[in-house]
């Protein structure tokens, strides 16, 4: 039996502020799921029920929304999450090599998480909107530009030293 999900006091207040922006509660669904993910790292089924109750949205609709959008996670990810852009501009400029290096360095397949739970990564077919930086990736939401296999090594090295600090 998994534990019930609940917003922290701060997030409860944040949700109240979000609700005030819209004439209907349901419009707060995407922001509410973002909040869940910020708080919990991913959106577990208990949180779907919680949000469903809170916003008076049928549970099935919450699940539809959760699975439709690709930025919501339904399982635990690494403490850091990498999204490597595989779209056209990044591909022209060599994202395949970057992907291979990421996979080799992390030792885990695309979509997976390192065994120490530190880093998860995915190679995304949708353009991340930073083609002038190609090839590029998103680390915890922030962009890293002009990647080469060597720069992947540097980036992962920096992450490792941060984590041990």
């Amino acid at each position, binding site marked *: 039996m998994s534990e019930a999900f609940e917003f922290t006091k701060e997030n409860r207040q944040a949700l109240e502020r979000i609700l005030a922006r819209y004439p209907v509660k349901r419009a707060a669904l995407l922001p509410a799921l*973002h909040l869940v993910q910020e708080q919990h790292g991913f959106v577990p089924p208990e949180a779907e029920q919680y949000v469903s109750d809170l916003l008076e949205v049928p549970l099935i609709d919450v699940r539809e929304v959760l699975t439709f959008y690709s930025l919501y996670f339904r399982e635990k990810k690494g403490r850091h999450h990498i*999204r490597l852009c595989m779209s056209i501009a990044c591909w022209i400029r060599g994202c395949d090599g970057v992907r291979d290096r990421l996979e080799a360095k992390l030792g885990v397949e695309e979509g997976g998480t390192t065994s120490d739970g530190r880093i998860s990564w995915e190679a995304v077919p*949708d353009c991340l909107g930073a083609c002038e930086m190609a090839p590029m990736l998103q680390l915890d*939401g922030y962009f890293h530009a002009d990647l080469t296999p060597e720069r992947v090594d540097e980036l992962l090295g920096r992450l490792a030293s941060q984590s041990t600090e």
Partner: protein
Amino acid sequence: MPEVKLVSEHFGNELARGLKWRLQNGGYEGAKKAMAMSPDEVVEEVTQSYLRGLGGAGFPTGRKWSFVPRDTGKPIYLCVNADEAEPGTFKDRYILEWDPHLLIEGIIICAHALGIETAYIYIRGEYVQPYERLQKAVDEAYEAGILGKKVLGGDVKLDVFIHRGAGAYICGEETALLESIEGKKGWPRLKPPFPAVVGLFGCPTVINNVETISHLPKIILKGGRWFADIGVERNGGTRLFALSGSVNRPGVYELPMGTPLRELIFDRGEGVLGGRKLKAVIPGGASAALLTADEIDAPLDFDSMAKIGTMLGSGAVIAIDESVCIVQTLHNLEHFFSHESCGQCTPCREGTGWVFKILGRIIEGNGRLSDLDTLRSLAENMTGTSICALCDGAAMPLRSCVQKFFHEFEHYIRYKKPYSERREAASA
């Protein structure tokens, strides 16, 4: 043609992100002027400016506004489309990151013109830093009394809320965007009714792209005619071009409408990467038909691009050099469309996936020449048969690639390898 900086004036200037500096440097002057004008006068200026919808469709902004009924007794909403996700497109991000107050100023002008009291900026979920910067600017504007109960100290109210997407290209489609704000999956709506009449929460709604809205301050300050004169006939002003791919200097360039494509690639982009030859160009985002290197003297404006069978679209120009395989290029593009199809309409849901699989099979060396007939036929069957334009967008590069680079497909199928040798890695 020289760069003309209407919306890109402050790109690269970190100070411009702050309200204080921005106010000292012309910020909100257009909005102040607009508030002193009647709403109809504002609409008239915009109509005269020939400002086109710069998200991709290129619909004249003034006309779009004219469809909004004012007498329904319902609120009118503005949705600013910052769901920039067309592959190759990153121009709106520059406005959001470098000059968010310009966007807010444009929103105030649009709101005044149409009697709008609530605006939502729908920003794609992947844009984390742009969101943070935009949110900071919105907060500043509220604190300074620019937004809120008394806009610019006057007697009208305007709320601006940022609504973050969650990773779905389709939400850049107007009605999918509305669904997404309403807390639903992004399935485009059947039209009519159009959003101008029945839009967000069932109310009249105008949906404009970030760049479109950001052009408003200067149009008001300097006049619609002035703006129109910068561009070419029926394509007013400038436009931000997002240049990427095989060029030496990728980036965002603001150029007058009608600037030749060649100029963007060779003057702004400083030519092709590694001194290689240009093979093809995607002139308006992944949904646009590819142009061959022979076709790049065409002017970059909506009508000229349409004339040569492609589109200006989102202003995303992707250069493809001689070393890049077109079959693989198309495979990459179709992977995107198949991944991003919302799944609602049959031809899109099934067609994009099918095309992607055929191309994958060709690349694996298991292609047949008959696949090319199938691909051409699928491009036809996927055109004009869905609720929205995503499927047409998938068919455009498909049709043009097979047509213009037939020999590359044939080569791949016969010899099980690319016509062009792919570089191992970027050598920028």
